[in-house]
């Protein structure tokens, strides 16, 4: 169960390459990569639940959306809000929501857990969809992006694409290494034990409910980080980001990429979004591009059939071998 060394090198290399990307000065691709990295953060936060705690949540979009709406509602109209307090505040909203709903959903198991997480996410969706304070079904704009200022010095100007790109990249790396650290701890080992055999963990004296709740809250807060960053990038939020499609998309990224690996879901986010871009490119595929979801579906089925460990399993067989030797 030790961290995979070759995977680590690979990840560092990728982070390094990504850091060079803005020098290519491609607005389109800088935006696309920013979007992908945000989804990678989102997918990693879900992997903590699905891949490491054995909890398949089908309502993760709730956190993404809640944090986005939190940012918008905290921002005064036409004025910027400071990232220093709005980000922790948005993540706290998510953590609180996870804490309260977690007390209920974590009493259910298996298929019921999936249903109840979905139900809570749908409740949040309809709260924002059917009431006016979040702009209803049209959503709501953020006119000024949050500021990052230390002692009068502007660290990053998030109106600039490259600055946002680097902020997201830094957060993605931070989330990866934070989760790696947490999962290597005694707490993380307990989560793995719970995923493997919760009954036995109880018999050994672990209060498993509290462990699961802690994992659920951390996952929700990190999911909120992704939603907060997305709200900055798009400059508006609408109920779509709370929809069950969005929960399904991130779940597919985790499973397709390889759950329980952290880097897998990152790979999944890249593969999913890039493939979506490719398959829906009309200049490339003409009329077929309209039916990109069909092709995407086939791809997902192929991965599920032939790569049970996801794309991560394909990328680093070596890491798997190391993991088996270390475990």
């Amino acid at each position, binding site marked *: 169960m030790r961290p995979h060394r070759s995977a680590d090198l690979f990840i560092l290399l990728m982070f390094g390459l990504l850091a060079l990307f803005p020098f290519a000065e491609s607005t389109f691709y800088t935006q696309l990569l920013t979007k992908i990295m945000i989804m990678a953060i989102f997918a990693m936060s879900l992997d903590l639940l699905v891949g490491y705690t054995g909890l398949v949540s089908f309502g993760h979009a709730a956190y993404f959306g809640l944090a986005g709406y939190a940012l918008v509602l905290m921002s005064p109209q036409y004025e910027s809000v400071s990232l220093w307090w709005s980000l922790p505040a948005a993540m706290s909203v998510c953590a609180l929501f996870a804490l309260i709903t977690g007390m209920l959903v974590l009493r259910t198991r298996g298929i019921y857990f999936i249903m109840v997480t979905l139900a809570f996410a749908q409740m949040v969706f309809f709260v924002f969809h059917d009431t006016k304070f979040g702009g209803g079904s049209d959503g709501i704009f953020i006119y000024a992006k949050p500021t990052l200022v230390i002692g009068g010095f502007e660290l990053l100007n998030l109106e600039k694409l490259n600055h946002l790109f680097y902020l997201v990249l830094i957060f993605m790396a931070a989330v990866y290494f934070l989760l790696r650290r947490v999962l290597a701890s005694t707490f*993380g080992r307990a989560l793995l*034990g719970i995923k493997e055999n919760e009954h036995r963990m109880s018999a050994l004296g672990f209060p498993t409910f509290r462990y699961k709740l802690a994992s659920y809250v951390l996952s929700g807060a990190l999911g909120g980080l992704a939603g907060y960053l997305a709200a900055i990038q798009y400059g508006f939020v609408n109920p779509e980001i709370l929809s069950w499609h969005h929960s399904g998309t991130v779940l597919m990224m985790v499973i397709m990429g390889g759950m329980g690996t952290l880097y897998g879901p990152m790979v999944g986010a890249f593969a999913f979004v890039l493939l979506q871009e490719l398959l829906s490119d009309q200049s490339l595929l003409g009329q077929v591009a309209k039916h990109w979801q069909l092709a995407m579906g086939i791809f997902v089925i192929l991965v599920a059939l032939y790569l049970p460990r996801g794309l991560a399993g394909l990328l680093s067989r070596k890491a798997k071998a190391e993991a088996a030797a270390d475990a």
Partner: protein
Amino acid sequence: MRDAILRTEKLSKRFGGLTAVDTVSIDLYMGEVHAVIGPNGAGKSTLTNLLSGDLPPSSGAVLFEGKDIAGLRSDRISRLGIGRSYQKTNIFLPFTVFENCRLAAQSRTPHAWRVFNGAPGFSDINRLAEEAMATAGLTPRRDMVAAALSHGEQRQLEIAMCLATRPRVLLLDEPLAGMGPQESQDMVELIQRLAADHAIMLIEHDMDAVFAVAHKLTVMVNGEVLESGTPEEVRASPAVQTAYLGGEDLLDD
């Protein structure tokens, strides 16, 4: 007379119309192996589940050091110092032997909630795990994945994990099930060694093993206690003789 560390008073468990455990009173003492025997369906495993908190009792009391613990959740009961092994091997198959034991030991330490310190860095946890492995005779298998162990070794691991939680009471549910002669012999010796500083409740069908290690015997039939006493008393009991068709099965099994 010494106080029992764990005792039940008229403990019962009903599943709908079926009374699986019927007003059972049993005492466990430190330094003693108390074997519970009886035919399949007698309620032995259900009794274990009531003591370990896997099932809540319908009525009656479970007293641990004089305090009623009936109905507490299994993790609380485990932390009080009552460990159990399972009839059906219940281990973490993808983890190594050491990691299984380390995880068990971890449940006893205040470090369990440390989020940033790498798990392998806690020497006290590692020491507990190593000790438990050594006691159960698994040190040579330390780095093997549990799934790759033989059936007998998995049974040993089951006990080692239990020991790593430093229990004072051990509830062993058929530790010899499916073991070969040599493995059985080793397990019997292990139970004898553990008896010195634990109170052990042993559920077992292997009568040779039971009579080799038990200080006390309780015979259960249909959820009720048929007879309880020293092995000699139980062997001589007319009720037991009748239940076991002249004692043949009981002694020779």
